[in-house]
């Protein structure tokens, strides 16, 4: 009697399995036991990062079908994608929002494994590979911003090479290698395209594979318990006991949370893409349009702020030394602190570091959203002086107000809450500075203010200072000069009078 004939799909499966022989490894990977407590919502960020990486590769390929990586055509091809290709705007939005989410989720993943001590023995290399995955993700973000090839991208490359130009000795060749020529142009975009589409994603996929492989081989990090110390001699045994005695198979015990979270993240990308649409492209990348205020994408705003706020003398060393040191520190972390306590309850330095970094990042990013260090270029012609500062004033004061606007003081100084914020707001300047101090400050500058002595005539300075002297809150007195008062009172009062409380 012939054996019962199997259904066609079963036969197809068997035919394939006899040749690829993947059933065993896949079953091993799927059914390997993980400690029960790690089937947690805290352990979903790694898999979400991988989902986003795959999502970015797919949407990126779809964009590459239309995008033209040429300096003269890139911007136009993006406009074409936005307006003439069916759902082109949507694919651009998916890829752009996918990148925002990927940077965020990778950072959250990294923070989580740091706080959970997952980088400790025997997972040191998993962490180190993860550090490179983070750097590559950021490199994708930067090169992706270049692909948009609008004004922000153009000047963003300029800022990048200006930093490279500060490298001693090899600065110039470095700049030209990055640019692929003497200027930001055809060579630059082609280079960044090759990086963004082939080199970095290829490396990223390879290293991500290695990263996941090591997670499978070494087992997912167990939930850290205060007092359960990692020792090189006993850890593997303890972990195996934990996974075997109290473990559950990865599929389906833990994976369902990964799947749900990944679906949620991708859905969030889709929703953001639908609501907010694609990012740009902004203005055409024409270097002769200088009325532009270049700003990096969200994830690099903190660098933009740091570069504005660093003291000039520190800047080059900080730019060139701190990033390599930071990367080295991250790589060295598991090698230096590879054993011991894993729980964040007993690692105050780790928790504080995360808190300090997070707060610094937040503050710098927030500052960068309104960049108070930049002059407001059109404040002098667009922000009028509040009417209460010019009502019932003398002609001299009004002329001073004119000088104030015309000489672009407003670009750096706010009045009535409007104007530049480079310098202090001047609404109560007369309560803080005397006439002499005002004249000196206007003529000689200082404290980050340019000197206007060469640029203003004496009558203009007189008028300007007269105007500034009217700027004070009604309940605050004018700033006075002790010497003036002494002269007005015919000299210093007698010593006995001072003892009785006489004022200078």
């Amino acid at each position, binding site marked *: 009697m012939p054996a019962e004939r199997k259904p066609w799909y079963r036969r197809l499966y068997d035919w394939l399995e006899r040749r690829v022989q993947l059933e065993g490894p896949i079953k091993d990977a799927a059914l390997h036991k993980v400690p029960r407590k790690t089937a947690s919502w805290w352990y979903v960020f790694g898999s979400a990062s991988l989902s986003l990486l795959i999502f970015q590769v797919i949407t990126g390929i779809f964009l590459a079908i239309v995008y033209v990586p040429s300096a003269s*055509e890139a911007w136009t091809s993006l406009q074409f994608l936005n307006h003439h290709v069916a759902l082109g705007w949507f694919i651009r939005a998916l890829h752009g929002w996918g990148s925002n989410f990927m940077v965020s989720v990778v950072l959250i993943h990294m923070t989580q494994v740091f706080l959970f001590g997952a980088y400790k023995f025997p997972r040191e290399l998993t962490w180190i590979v993860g550090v490179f995955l983070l750097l590559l993700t950021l490199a994708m973000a930067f090169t992706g911003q270049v692909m948009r090839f609008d004004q922000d991208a153009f000047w963003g490359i*300029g800022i990048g090479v200006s930093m*490279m130009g500060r490298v*001693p000795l090899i600065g110039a060749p470095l700049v030209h290698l990055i640019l692929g020529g003497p200027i930001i142009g055809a060579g630059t975009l082609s280079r960044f395209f090759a990086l963004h589409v082939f080199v970095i994603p290829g490396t990223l996929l390879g290293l991500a594979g290695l990263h996941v492989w090591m997670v499978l081989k070494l087992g997912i990090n167990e939930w850290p318990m205060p007092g359960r110390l990692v020792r090189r001699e006993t850890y593997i045994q303890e972990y195996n006991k934990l996974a075997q005695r109290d473990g559950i198979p990865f599929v389906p015990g833990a994976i369902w949370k990964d799947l749900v979270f990944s679906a949620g993240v991708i859905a969030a990308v889709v929703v953001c893409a639908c609501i907010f649409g694609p990012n740009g492209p902004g203005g055409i990348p024409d270097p002769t349009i200088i009325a532009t205020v270049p700003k990096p994408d969200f994830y690099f705003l903190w660098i933009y702020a740091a570069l504005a706020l660093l003291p000039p003398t520190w800047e080059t060393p900080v730019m060139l030394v701190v990033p390599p040191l930071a990367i080295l520190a991250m790589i060295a972390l598991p090698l230096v602190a590879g054993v011991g306590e894993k729980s964040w309850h007993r690692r105050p330095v780790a928790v504080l570091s995360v808190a300090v970094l997070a707060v610094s990042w937040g503050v710098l990013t927030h500052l960068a959203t309104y960049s108070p260090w930049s002059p407001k*270029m059109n404040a002098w012609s667009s922000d009028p002086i509040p009417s209460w500062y010019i009502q019932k004033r003398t002609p001299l004061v009004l002329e001073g107000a004119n000088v104030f606007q015309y000489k672009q003081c407003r670009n750096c100084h706010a009045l009535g809450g409007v104007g530049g914020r480079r310098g202090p707001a001047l609404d109560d300047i007369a309560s803080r500075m005397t006439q002499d101090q005002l004249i000196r400050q206007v003529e000689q500058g200082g404290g980050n203010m*340019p000197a206007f002595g060469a*640029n203003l005539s004496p009558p203009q300075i007189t008028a300007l200072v007269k105007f500034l002297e009217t700027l004070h809150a009604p309940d605050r007195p004018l700033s006075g000069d002790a010497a003036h008062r002494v002269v007005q009172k015919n000299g210093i009062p007698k010593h006995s009078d001072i003892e009785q409380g006489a004022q200078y």
Partner: protein
Amino acid sequence: MDEKLPPPSPQEQEEQLHHERVSRRTFLMKIAIALDVLVTIGVAVPLGWYLLGALPSRKNGYLRWIPIGNVDDFKPDETTLITFENPIRSPWDGYTAKVPAYVRRQGADKFTVFAINCAHLGCPVRWFPESQLFMCPCHGGIYYADGSRASGPPPRGLFTYPTKIENGKLLIDAGQVPTLSTQAKLIQEISPCPQNENPGTGASTIG
């Protein structure tokens, strides 16, 4: 007496043969690896050469003398925004082959041509004739009319192009993005306090 060594046992024979086989194969493998290394180097050298093609040849670099207009086009004591085409360019550079610069005429044949790029991190500075200042939109660098640093993070004054006048035309020596290492050395250290002269009050800073 005829004393002979006993012939090697089959096992010994096998071992000898195996040893020989392995050593010959190992040798061949080493040769093959050496060959691969050689071929790899043979491919890597031209690939590296290709990548370094972005660097200028040693003789003249990227800089060329470029005419940017007639001398008479520029009014004395004024700073004008001009545009020129980069001398080294490719047909698909598009807009990016155009380079802006500021020309400042101080006398009959005294010109200063400033690069548009802030000496801090390369953003385009804007000229304000009213206040006689260049202002940078990125990190707040400010320069006086003569290009010297007035305030903000720049480590030096604005980059300038070398100029010359030939047959009534103004020429500049330009052709690459100016950065701290591709344009000039640090010419002006930051002085935290004004020295003898107050900055910005000298005749040179008046536009």
